[in-house]
């Protein structure tokens, strides 16, 4: 009997890090757009310069959510940052 393939994914945990290039590729977004969202406070990054930026799991999830909120609801970066902060606060309270 053929063995079914077992897929191994990447866990978005505390060890997860992406470079600017990687996050742009995965999220299908330009570097300029990511820089704009970092500047607006939607996501926080480690590192001083975009070339050395590292995005953790939280930043990755927030970036994806911000892009969806913008696409689906027309929310601008400042609005997305506010909405995501409030949602996180709500999650903590729950």
């Amino acid at each position, binding site marked *: 009997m053929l063995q079914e393939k*077992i*897929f*191994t994914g*990447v866990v978005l*945990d505390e060890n997860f890090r992406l470079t600017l290039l990687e996050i742009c590729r995965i999220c299908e977004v330009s570097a300029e757009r990511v820089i704009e969202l970092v500047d607006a406070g939607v996501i926080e990054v480690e590192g001083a310069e975009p070339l050395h930026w590292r995005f953790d799991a939280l930043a990755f999830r927030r970036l994806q959510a911000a892009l*969806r909120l913008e*696409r689906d*609801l*027309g929310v601008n970066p400042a609005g997305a940052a506010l909405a995501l902060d409030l*949602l996180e606060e709500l999650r903590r309270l729950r």
Partner: protein
Amino acid sequence: MEFKDYYKILGVSRDAGQDEIKRAYRKLARKYHPDVSKEKNAEEKFKEVNEAYEVLKDPEKRRAYDQFGSQWQQGGQGFQPPPGWEEQFGFKGGAQAGGGFGDFSEFFEALFGGGRPHGRRGGFRMRGEDLHASVHIDLEDAYRGTTQTLTLNVPEADPASGRLVDKHKRLQVKIPKGIQEGQKIRLAGQGAPGMGGGPAGDLYLEIHFKPHRWFRVEGRDLYLDLPITPWEAALGAKVPVPTLEGRVELKIPPGAQTDKKLRLKGKGLPGRPAGDQYVILKIHTPPADTAEKKRLYEEMAKVMPMNPRQGMGV
């Protein structure tokens, strides 16, 4: 095929203006957006709202939809587009599904030609949608790691029509040990297929723990309420305690009280560092249901008089 009343979905009357439709859509899209909403069927509702707006915002589609309104009312579940529909209205291109959380219903596709042309015919290259799913696992599986077999609805290209159709896909996925509640696993390329030779999207699995009969979980730490007797609490004792790797002995210090928290270092979920297991003591008193037991309690009251409410001034 199930009839969709797009006006009812958006909560507007059939003579609503474009502004009213837009306002209703925006309000409902905010309410049911899967990133925002905690409602159980938010994603499904969001898709429905998007589909309704896709039709009602477009004067051509709305006109076509309105024209057959009376037939739809009679058609109910068995509705089929009337003969000559395609020739009259010519909706073949469909629409790009709004949002990344799915696509349009069979009803929409029957009327407007389907939202998901696939292959190179579109002449543009597009990455497939990311898909999201929740996986509920036992705490023991998070502790040891496991392999889960998932069945997902994944859009796939139908070779005959070139369109995307939902197909059941079985996938065996490794869940690594030490995974935490709410964490996501990204499976690159396991989402919806791309268009025009574009790459497939990714699959994101959100991990949730099934409720455990003994343990509560916070991050990697476990919490366990442990019943003990009054004499174990007063005199101290070594008692057996369940952990995820089996039974261990726990030393209760003399003079312990209810809600005292003891730590079993490293006995939580694995990781760097591993979580701890916290044992919360709960003193259980035996019932005074015989003359002998009553006498013992009365003896205790005499020998050890105390007022546990002293701090309350009563």
